[in-house]
């Protein structure tokens, strides 16, 4: 891919700066402890986790493009499989870096590698993530090395299966939290899988059109339109799962307090849910994609950006709103204590958390930008595709 | 891992054997150590790690290789601590060998009797 030299280096410099700021934030957190973040003993997972989960879920979903090409044999998607694999590795690297640097003792990651608790979903995920790195790398190799091409279909199939298991694992992190009202639902793993389709494809659209624009190439509008329609379908499917999750909660009497908090009177959380996720993340993108007078390249990219924004809003509500609502330790009693029993927990993210999160995005950006320049990841569309 | 590096460092540094430029340490009360001092210099970390797992996981508290035992004898008689000064028993040597000590992020470096009095 031919960027103009100056543009390429300024992109690398900008991405590098963001990454450096993120690392600096992690250093501050390491030195002072988590006291400099907004997290506390009630909200134990904060903004870094919102960024990390978004990137990890999108890393799995972005592989959808490759799967449709390799597993289902669609030529338009097959041409995009290398870029999809690259984005997956980049996003996974970014997300995992954020997750790791947010640990209380990031210097001890070796402990996590050498002590393995087989009952922990976190520990399973360590295997799932490293497995995905490995499989996607092999898959990219089978596609880019001509002698390996015959293997690219089985490799694609393996990736296809693996990422399903991986996103199931991500969903299970929350699904296994039996005592928390917001989590502990068997609906979460499939919900995360479908959501990953939407977020992954949205990230793909944004990355693809940015790289096209930077290299001065024109993107075939009919292909964008087709892939835009697919994004619309994924967005609706994700919305269905989110609705089903909240509706089942509404049906259980003991969950109605929590749903009331998230959907109506929880202050920031309902606002983020309805305006951020509902309007920006669903309604507007769907209009942009399906309105007869829209649906062109520019509106598909805008829709994708909105889907990403809506994704962050949904995750903020899910991760932080889910912890803010008090745990029901004594059902039937109104509780109060010095440790936040019976009270809504307060959380306001601090600057280091933002920097760390954006640092993770910066890592994904750097990996992608540098890779598309040195290797041939971009699609080569044959004219007149008919499938 | 750290322990391994430490051994490598020791192996690569003949200065101990030659007794040339070794740090001067405030060894506290000193006296008869649980093992030969030269051997302890090389192996104390293994003893400590073994003892710590026995204590934390199985509740065995009377082992003689405990960190508290080390501190009891070797804390300085001036400030009752094995860390904090350049010639402190733990810190002095670890600084000389450039090996980070993780113990005292959580463990007190003070002799227990002194800690209790200061409270």
């Amino acid at each position, binding site marked *: 891919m031919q960027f103009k030299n100056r543009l390429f280096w300024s992109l690398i410099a900008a991405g590098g700066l963001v990454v450096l700021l993120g690392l600096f934030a992690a250093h501050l957190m390491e030195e*002072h*402890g*988590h*006291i400099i973040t907004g*997290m*506390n*003993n*009630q909200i*134990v*997972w904060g903004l870094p986790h919102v960024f990390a989960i978004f990137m990890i879920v999108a890393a799995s979903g972005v592989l959808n493009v490759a799967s449709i090409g390799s597993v289902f044999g669609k030529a338009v998607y097959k041409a995009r499989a290398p870029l999809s694999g690259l984005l997956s590795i980049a996003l996974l690297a970014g997300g995992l870096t954020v997750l790791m640097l947010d640990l*209380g*003792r990031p210097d001890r990651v070796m*402990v*996590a590698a050498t*002590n393995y*608790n087989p009952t*922990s*979903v*976190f*520990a399973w995920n360590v295997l799932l993530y490293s497995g995905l790195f490995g499989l996607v790398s092999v898959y990219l190799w089978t596609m880019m090395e001509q002698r390996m091409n015959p293997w690219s279909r089985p490799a694609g199939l393996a990736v296809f299966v693996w990422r399903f298991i991986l996103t199931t694992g991500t969903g299970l*992190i929350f699904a*296994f*939290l*039996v*005592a928390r009202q917001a*989590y502990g639902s068997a609906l979460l793993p499939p919900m995360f899988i479908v959501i990953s389709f939407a977020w992954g494809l949205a990230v793909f659209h944004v990355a693809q059109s940015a790289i096209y624009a930077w290299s001065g190439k024109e993107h075939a509008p009919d292909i964008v339109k087709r892939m835009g329609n697919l994004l619309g379908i994924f967005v609706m499917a994700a919305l269905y799962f989110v609705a089903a999750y909240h509706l089942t909660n509404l049906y259980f009497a003991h969950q109605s307090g929590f749903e009331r908090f998230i959907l109506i009177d929880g202050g920031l959380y309902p606002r983020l849910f309805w305006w951020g996720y509902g309007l920006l993340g669903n309604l507007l993108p769907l209009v942009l994609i399906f309105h007869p007078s829209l649906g062109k390249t520019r509106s598909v990219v805008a829709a994708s950006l909105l889907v990403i924004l809506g994704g962050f809003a949904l995750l903020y509500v899910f991760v932080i709103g889910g912890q803010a609502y008090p*745990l029901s*330790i*004594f059902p*039937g*009693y*109104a*509780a*109060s*204590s*010095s*440790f936040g*029993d019976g009270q809504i927990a*307060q959380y306001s993210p601090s600057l280091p958390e933002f920097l760390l999160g954006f640092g993770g995005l910066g890592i994904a950006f750097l990996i992608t930008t540098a890779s598309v320049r040195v290797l041939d990841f971009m699609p080569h569309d044959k004219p007149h595709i008919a499938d | 891992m750290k322990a391994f590096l430490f051994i490598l460092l020791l192996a690569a540094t003949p200065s101990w054997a030659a007794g040339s430029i070794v740090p001067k340490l405030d060894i506290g009360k000193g006296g008869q150590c649980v093992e030969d001092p030269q051997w302890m210099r090389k192996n104390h970390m*293994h*003893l400590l790690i*073994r*003892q710590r797992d*026995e204590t*934390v*996981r*199985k*509740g*065995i*508290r009377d*082992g*003689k290789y405990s960190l*508290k035992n080390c*501190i009891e004898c070797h804390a300085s008689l001036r400030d009752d601590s094995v860390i904090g000064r350049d010639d402190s028993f733990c810190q002095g040597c670890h600084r000389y060998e450039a090996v980070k000590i993780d113990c005292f*992020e*959580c*463990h*007190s470096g003070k002799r227990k009797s002194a*800690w209790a009095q*200061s409270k």
Partner: protein
Amino acid sequence: MSNINVQRRQFLKTSVGLAAVAVAPGMLLFEAAHGQSAAVSSKVRWGMLIDTANCTDGCNDCVAACNKGNGLAGGLNSGGLSPTDSQWMRKVELKDMRGGRTLSLPMMCQHCEHPPCVDVCPTGASFKRADGIVLVDRHRCIGCRYCMMACPYKARSFVHEPLHDQNPDVPRGKGTVESCTMCVQRIDRGQQPACAEACPNKAILFGNLNDPESEIARRIRTVASVQVRADLGLNTAIRYQGL
């Protein structure tokens, strides 16, 4: 071919021998270190019975004793507790939403038989001792806080700041998770947990649930007691009377 095989065998023998020589001193030391003392046994299961009728509203003596014994600041240095301060034990005031009855009780790690924190911990830092005490091995804790997400009792705290001047008997430090240890350092010396000793009304009865002759086992046989969130089936070691 056979020559190679012989050579290889010879090589393997030598390496195994060398490995044995390298390991042996360590093993000997291990034996020596073992000495006479015995590990805690699963014949014992430590537990507590808390009588809420004797727990006075507004009394904080157990929490104060816990903080003092374990070296927690308890908000004393900073003028009041902040949401980032560790609280191993807290007093919870309850009001029955139907009848309006009020009661007060101490809340801490319930030392479950099937602890969710142990299940979710990726490194095995959260563990249950043979005698039922649930602990965090801070040497292994990487500070991921998944256990805090999983605990149904909000019993755990994360150390948000560097600490100094810890109790030599109770090591704790920045970046790791901690919770009530049932004063394991005292139990191993044959003493009671600090809270049980400090309670002016003797509302906290500590003892061995597995010994049918112990006072706690007798009381649990004769009076009605409940486990908090018994519906989760975790079989906690802390029981409450009058809840």
